[in-house]
């Protein structure tokens, strides 16, 4: 949208298309366009780009509450969940690396005991990041692996435990129950755990991300989002629709396949990319 343009009908149409193409979804898009139309009548002072960004930030929530943390000195447990292929394992590698760079001791639980070579894949990442790893055999009970990893993390004085889980589609009730059990087991082993439950969303996902957010939240108490693959052409507008509906904060953005390709969420950058 050009900085000098007025907010007329033609521009609103162009903007609507840009927001839809960014996967905001028709509902949220209508809300934003309607709000802009109203504002344009009353407020001709604010620059157009600024106005659009402000309306989008209302949906996004400019100030995200900080991630929940345990009391000082206690182990922090982060459970990573999401559908198949979203980028959970890779994101854990990146997070572990970041935490290590900040001087932390990191333990990873290889609790995807189902998919072919999932454990091997995570082992490579743990090695690259300088993190410790607890694993079992393929087919082992995922909650048991997480439990063992938690014990080992405490014993070895780690400050963060990252738990990788198998990808699963949210409509599979038995797999969602498996996640519920994982959460309970972690909470019994360490009251308050898991402190963070991150839902990893593939940035190319469309409106199905809403269903993912709802059902994963129900099963495992998601309290943060990661949107991956934003180094592509997808804009990840679904994160706004999810935030608007469920209030979930976006914590991290994945911007590539390398170990450094993880950015903390920046509301201004994120929202501007949706309509530029």
């Amino acid at each position, binding site marked *: 949208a050009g900085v000098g343009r007025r907010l007329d009908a033609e521009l609103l149409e162009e903007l609507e298309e840009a927001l839809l193409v960014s996967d905001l*979804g028709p509902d949220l898009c209508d809300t934003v366009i309607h709000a802009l139309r109203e504002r344009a009548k009353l407020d001709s002072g604010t620059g157009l780009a600024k106005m659009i960004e402000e309306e989008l930030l209302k949906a996004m929530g400019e100030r995200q509450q900080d991630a929940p943390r345990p009391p000082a000195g206690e182990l922090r447990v982060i459970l990573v969940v999401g559908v*198949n292929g979203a980028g959970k394992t890779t994101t854990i590698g990146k997070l572990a690396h970041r935490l290590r760079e900040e001087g932390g001791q990191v333990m990873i639980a290889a609790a995807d005991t189902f998919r*072919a070579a999932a454990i091997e*894949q995570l082992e490579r990442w743990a090695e690259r990041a300088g993190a410790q790893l607890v694993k079992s055999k393929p087919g082992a009970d995922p909650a048991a692996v997480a439990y063992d990893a938690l014990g080992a993390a405490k014993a070895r004085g780690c400050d963060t435990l990252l738990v990788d889980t198998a990808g699963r*589609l949210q409509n599979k009730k038995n797999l969602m129950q498996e996640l519920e059990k994982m959460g309970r087991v972690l909470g019994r082993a360490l009251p308050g755990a898991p402190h963070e439950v991150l839902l990893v969303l593939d940035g190319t996902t469309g409106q199905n991300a809403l269903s993912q957010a709802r059902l994963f939240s129900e099963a495992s108490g998601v309290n943060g989002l990661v949107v991956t693959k934003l180094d592509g052409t997808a804009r990840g507008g679904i994160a706004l629709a999810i935030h608007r509906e469920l209030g979930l904060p976006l914590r991290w953005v994945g911007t590539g396949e390398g170990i450094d390709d993880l950015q903390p969420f920046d509301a201004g950058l994120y929202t501007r990319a949706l309509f530029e």
Partner: protein
Amino acid sequence: SIQDRFDGILRGLKGTAKISESNIEEAVSQIRRALLEADVNIKVVRTFINDVREEAKGEGVLKAVSPGQQFTKILSDKLQELLGGQAEPIRWNREGPTVIMMVGLQGSGKTTSAGKLAGMLKKKGRKPFLIAADVYRPAAVDQLVVLGEQLGVPVFRPIDDDPFKTAVEGLAEAKRQGADTILLDTAGRLHIDEGMMAELEAIRGEIQPSEILFVADAMIGQDAVNAASEFDRRLAFTGVVLTKLDGDTRGGSALSIRSVTGKPIKFVGLGEKLDAIEQFHPDRMAQRILG
């Protein structure tokens, strides 16, 4: 469902008043919303509803006994026709083994689908052979090796960390072993990654696959047309595999990808196990998209 929405709009008109063009317009705007919620691309939606509007006005909705039903029928028929009337089979090579190349964005299901296809073909009495040409993703080769072991299908490992060399030598080894169908798994990549797309072009140029399958995650949103059209532009793929349709996504990406590339959706992935693959059914997909 969309039928309910139409019944809602056109209900009051059965037998009493004549339905008007503005009623049709209201129904059309419901379709637009439904298709966008189903992740059909905005430009594809626009073209589609223009066609539907013309047909609805011209055909029989205005005079129909049950306009809601008539309208739904036009909609569903049109959708099915656009998705591709008949399921299309694999393009078998006339002479020599058939090479099938799997390509697509990261995490779409290429490796798993290569395994599933190998399994399906083996059950049909063919002699499949898998080539692991993803040298980038950690343990990608291990993943395909494990699948090959589960299926009893040979897997060719990378040579010199070089996907091109691997494809060429893998094909030679497959021929030596008398395989009749070679499935080449490649690394996921972005359509805007020049180097990685050039790598695929080079491999394609050298081994000349008779089938290039674009593997897409059914839950992909508006970005489907960007990825599909660029992969098509550079590789001229011959078919599409739509994965993770065992989820609850409406799968509008099927219509977007098909409209924008004209290529047939050949298979759908319906689960994580190696037997979870089927031929594509346009009628079932149409119903699903309409919700």
